[in-house]
């Protein structure tokens, strides 16, 4: 009798183990699924994956954003163990982990054509497209100038006309100010994001498809238009960017002020915060306009949209014991219903060509994506410059006024030197 009692649990456990092994748990780390619209979207997509793949269970772990996230990932790499899938920002932050993420070409072969080759190239090892793809892009990230059409009309400005020159843009700002309307709502607490994002738009306008060459042999120093961009930024900061009512970090309250109709323009994003969806839902779909950039007089890249081919994406880590299951999860996020769900709920722009943008019901999205695009300059900078130094230089030059425009240009040039040395 004792022997039977001892054997029963063993058989039961053995049986349980056998059925448990048929369900593969795929663990995902990311910095978006913890809260907000991203959480809602990812829960839906995960549920869909589990429904379509009964042998897959998803363990989606929310990690803190910012510096802490990559410190955690590095700790996992040093330990040689961790999640199956890790979210990365597109660009240098992902390339550093190329040795520790799986090549995905065989996994994406069946649906590769749904995403443009430029996006895949950006997500390849090193980012030039000559080596295997290591990341599935979920979103594209960009920056631009959202406008409140009603306020523009109130100031006597044609709300549907993108200013053809910088002078026209400044004249519009003057007219808005004269009408008692804050021309641009900005926020600088914690970081000069308004300045940072607008500069990325300027650089796209000035350099166009030569942005990538900034990491090779194209300079900021000696470029008259880059200097003009700095002077325009100085003028905007001095006279037309209103941060009076803003105080919180990450300029969220500036975005809230724009959504509340307290300013005519806002330098916003195309990802999941302070974006077209937020503003259209608040101000009305037909009341939100968009300028991709400020056009410099001699710029050859008028109305070009700055766009990162991958804002965030997922990679499979080399230690994953379930790479095939992880690949199915990646496919569900990058293809099929997943991209539409994510875009519809968060407002982040997806990269899948099959996602039906029109079904979202926001005309502005089609308008943004119809434009030619240029690479975001921070995609070619080193980690430190892209995520810390550039913002600090922008603060010194345009918020606190500690350094002159020439000194700012010299510091920006030093970032290019760092980028070239790092390659």
């Amino acid at each position: 009798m004792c022997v039977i009692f001892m054997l029963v649990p063993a058989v039961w456990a053995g049986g349980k183990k056998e059925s448990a092994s048929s369900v593969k748990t795929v663990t995902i780390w990311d910095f978006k699924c913890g809260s907000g619209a991203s959480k809602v979207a990812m829960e839906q997509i995960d549920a869909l994956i589990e429904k379509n793949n009964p042998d897959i269970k998803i363990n989606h772990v929310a990690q803190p954003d910012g510096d802490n996230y990559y410190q955690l990932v590095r700790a996992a790499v040093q330990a040689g163990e961790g999640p199956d899938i890790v979210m990365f920002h597109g660009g240098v932050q992902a390339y550093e982990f190329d040795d520790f993420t799986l090549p995905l070409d065989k996994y994406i072969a069946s649906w590769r054509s749904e995403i443009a080759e430029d996006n895949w190239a950006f997500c390849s090892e090193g980012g030039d497209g000559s080596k295997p793809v290591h990341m599935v892009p979920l979103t594209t990230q960009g920056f631009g100038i959202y406008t409140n059409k009603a306020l523009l009309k109130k100031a006597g400005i044609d709300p549907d006309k993108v200013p053809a020159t910088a002078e026209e843009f400044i004249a519009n700002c003057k007219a808005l100010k004269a009408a008692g309307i804050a021309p641009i709502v900005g926020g600088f607490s914690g970081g000069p994001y308004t300045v940072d994002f607008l500069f990325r738009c300027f650089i796209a306008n000035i350099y166009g498809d030569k942005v990538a060459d900034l990491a090779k042999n194209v300079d900021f120093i000696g470029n008259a238009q880059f200097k003009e961009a700095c002077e325009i930024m100085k003028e905007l900061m001095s006279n037309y960017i209103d941060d009076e009512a803003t105080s919180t970090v990450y300029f969220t309250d500036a975005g809230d002020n724009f959504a509340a109709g307290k300013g005519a323009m806002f330098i916003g994003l195309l990802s999941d915060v302070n974006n077209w969806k937020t503003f259209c839902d608040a101000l009305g779909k037909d009341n939100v306009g968009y300028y991709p950039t400020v056009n410099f007089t001699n710029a050859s890249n008028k109305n070009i949209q700055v766009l990162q081919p991958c804002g965030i994406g997922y990679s499979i880590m080399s230690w994953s014991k379930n790479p095939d299951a992880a690949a199915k999860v990646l496919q569900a996020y990058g293809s099929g219903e997943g991209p539409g769900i994510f875009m519809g709920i968060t407002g982040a722009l997806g990269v899948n060509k099959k996602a039906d943008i029109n079904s979202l019901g926001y005309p502005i999205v089609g308008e943004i994506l119809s434009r030619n695009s240029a690479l975001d300059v921070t995609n070619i900078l080193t980690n430190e410059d892209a995520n810390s130094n550039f913002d600090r230089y922008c603060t010194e030059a345009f918020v606190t006024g500690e350094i002159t425009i020439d000194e700012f240009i010299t510091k920006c040039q030093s970032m290019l030197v760092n980028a070239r040395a790092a390659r």
Partner: protein
Amino acid sequence: MKRKLSKKNTELFEPYMLITPLLILLAVFILYPVIANIVMSFFKWNGIKKPEFIGLENYAEMFKDEKFWGSIKNTGILLLYIPLGVILPLVVSAVLREGLKGWPFFRAALYLPNILGYVIMGSICNIVFRKTGPLNNILNALGLQNLAKDWLMSPSLAINSLGFVYGVWLRLGFGCIFFLAAMSSIDESLYDAAKIDGAKWWKTFFNVTLPSIRFSIEFWVVLSFIEVLARAFSFIYTFTNGGPGFATFTLEYGIYTSGFVAFKMGYASAWASVLFVFCAIIAVFQVKLMKREAE
């Protein structure tokens, strides 16, 4: 004889056996990290790939780096607040020692920042010092609009706010407790004698209190140096994030940025080696003080 020898051996080795656990902990958590840091400063390492020996390149880069010299300057500015951070708790302690109505309340209020810790206090101070924060709201309500500044977005105001809040105000509570404890050991007869001689409060303070707790004051100064050099990061991170620009970017902050934002571990180790030298100098002073006191 054998028993005597064994007892002698035991007596000889017993002290070492007793301090061995502490020595092991010191070696593992203090000595090894210090040596490893110095060694790492000669390598290029991003935290995940194999470290690459590069000799003195990190130091050469560091001495050419504007940010390094700026961080030294900012750390120096914070150190200038140490005298006020010593004098204020001294004076407050002396006043509290005389007996003050509501003394338990003041004691609790002064010590609260120590309980909450630097991260929470940094976050609270970030909110308080914002352009639209409570400090400016109070100043405006009192009709002092010209004093309501953008504390966190002006480089000079930010570094001086940091110096005052971190170097003086945050440490006031613990400083009072520390000096009150020191003052409690002063012989009351000295105060009686001073009273008989007709000495006023300030004269008693300078001629009786201060000389009697001289060692405590010197010790507090040394502690203050360590606090500013090597313990301010968590407060700066939440209060100003090293900004605006590089205005509150200290040596400690630079170590963090180089190591955990730029992931240049070797370079961060070079910065940390410089900080180690500063702290070692302070530690030598501290040891000399303690030796003198013991004598």
